[in-house]
C-alpha cells in the first residue's frame, strides 16, 4: 500500500529515542500521533508530512537535517574513529 511502502529518505528517530531512553509511546504522545505511526516512520514505511517532521525535530531539539536526510546517515562509529 502506498501509505506504507518504503520511503526515499532516512531518519535517526530510533537512534535518538534509544540514546535518550524515550519510548515510542512517549514520543508519539509528544508529537500527537499513534505509537504505531512512530514505528512505521522509523522503519521507513510511511512518508510523513513536513509538519510532523518539524515536530519530531523540535522534540529532540535538533534541526530537520540532523534527524532526516535524503542520503543514508553515516554510522556514528565513523565519526568517533576520526576524532
Amino acid at each position: 500500500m502506498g501509505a506504507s511502502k518504503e520511503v526515499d529518505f532516512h531518519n535517526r528517530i530510533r537512534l535518538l529515542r534509544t540514546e535518550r531512553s524515550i519510548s515510542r509511546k512517549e514520543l508519539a504522545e509528544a508529537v500527537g500521533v499513534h505509537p504505531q505511526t512512530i514505528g512505521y516512520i522509523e522503519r521507513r514505511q510511511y512518508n510523513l508530512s513536513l509538519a510532523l517532521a518539524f515536530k519530531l525535530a523540535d522534540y529532540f531539539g535538533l534541526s530537520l537535517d540532523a534527524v532526516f536526510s535524503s542520503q543514508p546517515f553515516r554510522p556514528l562509529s565513523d565519526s568517533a574513529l576520526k576524532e
Partner: protein
Amino acid sequence: MASKLQLRIFGQVNSPFADRLQTRSKRRGIVLGCIGGAAAIGAGIIAVVEHAAWVLLAAIPFWGFAFLLNMSLRGIFELDDDLLDEHQIAVRNQSYKTAYGYALVFLLIVATAATAFDFERHVALGVAAFAFLTGALAPRLVAAWTLEEPDGRE
C-alpha cells in the same frame, strides 16, 4: 470537537483487546473470516431462502468478524480526522482508492456471471448479498490485508 460516540469508539479501538488484534496475521485471519461470513450469508440465502431465520443465523459470524475488523484497524474508518493521525488518514484514503478498483472488477465479474448463467431469483439474491457485504467492507478488507506489521509496542 469529537462527539461522545466518537470518543467511545476511540476508547474501544485503543483498548488492550484491540491492540492484540493488530498483527498482520490476525488482521488477515479476520479478513478471511469476513469474506467467509459474507459467503455464508449468500449461501444461506441460496440454500434456505424459505427459512429466513437461517440467513439471520449466518449473519452472526459475519457481524462478529466485521466488529473485529474495525477493532484491528484502530477505528480508522469510523473516527473523525481529528481523532486520527496523518498516517491513519493516509492508510484510510489509500484503502478507499485501492478498494474502489477491486470492487469495480469484482462487481463486473458478478454481473457478467449473473448474465451468462441466468441465475434463478434466489441464487441472484444470494450472490447480490455476498457482493454487497464484501463491497461494503472492501476498503476495510484492503487495509487489514495490506497494512504492514505494526511492531510498535514497547
